[in-house]
């Protein structure tokens, strides 16, 4: 298979959410000695972009997003060890610490955002659900995060997104991290009110937002 055909197949594997195919094609790329960074950028990432477009049009829903993110993981599981061997790193959009705020055990949306950010080239540290606000800061400081993403499903716990921004200010760390908020009750207006750097309505929008605010950009 020539390179263009291979890239086309890779994109298709992601769009179809076909993990086995995505992994097999990654293996082919490794065996053929292709530039693996180019493989990620021109083979797989366009697939994730198309998945995002299909979601925004209302053609794709949560099951398709999960399958595509899983397919991306299958490909990266083959590619990453090879990159490490060559002492190369996949281009990253930045480091993200993500979790559902304390008092809230809902994690469906947060998991999806984490999966899509990872598929979109971010290094993601997922702290899970019901995460103490201090814990977000500890983790973000220890890994040198660029973003802290806070999820909340309940109107009673979303207030913790506001408390978190206040806590960062109190610790004089507000400028160190970009704070993004999400969850069913959140909104652009909410993000402004609580002093966050941004809000995304869904996982696809979250990737776009993080890319726009990414420190590596420009």
């Amino acid at each position: 298979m020539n390179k263009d055909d291979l890239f086309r197949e890779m994109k298709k594997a992601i769009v179809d959410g076909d993990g086995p195919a995505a992994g097999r094609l990654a293996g082919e790329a490794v065996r053929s000695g292709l530039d693996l960074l180019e493989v990620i950028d021109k083979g797989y990432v366009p697939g994730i972009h198309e998945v995002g477009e299909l979601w925004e049009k209302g053609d794709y829903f949560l099951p398709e997003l999960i399958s595509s993110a899983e397919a991306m993981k299958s490909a990266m599981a083959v590619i990453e060890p090879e990159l490490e061997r060559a002492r190369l790193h996949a281009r990253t959009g930045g480091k993200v610490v993500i979790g559902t705020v304390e008092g809230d055990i809902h994690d469906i949306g947060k998991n999806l955002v984490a999966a899509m950010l990872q598929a979109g080239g971010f290094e993601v540290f997922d702290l899970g659900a019901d995460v103490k606000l201090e814990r977000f800061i500890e983790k973000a400081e220890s890994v040198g995060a660029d973003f802290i993403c806070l999820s909340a499903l309940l109107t009673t716990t979303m207030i913790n997104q506001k408390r978190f921004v206040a806590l960062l200010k109190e610790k004089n760390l507000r400028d160190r991290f970009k704070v993004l908020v999400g969850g069913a009750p959140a909104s652009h207006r909410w993000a402004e009110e609580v002093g966050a750097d941004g809000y995304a309505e869904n996982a696809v929008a979250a990737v776009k937002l993080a890319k726009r605010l990414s420190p590596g950009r420009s």
Partner: protein
Amino acid sequence: MNKMSLLDLAKGRTVLLDGALGTELMARGLPLGACPESWNADRPEAVREVHRDYFAAGSDAVSTNSFGGSRIKLAGHGLAARTAELNVAAARLAREVAPADRYVAGSIGPTGKFLKPQGEFTEDEFESVFAEQSAALAEGGVDVLIVETQYDLHEALCALRGARRAGSLPVFVTMTFNAVPRGYFTLMGDTVTRCVSELEKAGAAAVGANCTLNSQQMVDLVASIRRETVLPVIVQANAGKPVLGADGRVAYSQTLEDYVRFVPDLVRGGANFVGGCCGTNPAFIKAMAASIARRTS
């Protein structure tokens, strides 16, 4: 004397359900992150009080404090072993304060987990969990079961089958739809048509929508549900989106007046059961009762 069934009542007039429950319990001191169902055992009087307020506001039926009462959901709070106890108690508390001519609906919410392949659970596992919860609610004396806020048709069908396996109570099912560019879909991508027809086929006694959409958006949605079924239709809208109030507390974007303004349209559009969801309270239900009464008088 035999009381008319809730379904028969709905044949004659619009039936009023209740509004949000969790936020009412929070207002009475339920701590952030605590399991609301635990109050069925620990603070029964607070739960009774909320039900009483809704009956006083005009609800024909209230939903029990058991939305998160499935074994899977309770396990998140370390309360799985108390599943039967907390659901029986939920039903009894509502029953105890229900006037003789009013009704109690046993609330069943989603597990918060996914079926395979997105998650780890099988349909059989979900069905058993819902059957267990349904049996406990029936034992506590509910008149109907209401499977609510379902974002996955497959899970809703598991709940419906589990509830029907557990006994002979009528089972109502409300799905949660999002507005996307091509229309209304569940999170998992189920269409209104597919949800309604599959639920009807599986034996739902009434179908409808709750949560996420505000009362104006529900007017649009109820018409498309009505077109798909002859079953009674249920609508429980959110009061818009949460916003930060001037006092630093969370408030909702749709005011009581704006919310209730659309109730006549919901009824005209084919809703037989109306009630509230997130952001509503007994004051909303009282205003809805007045709106419905005006329409029928």
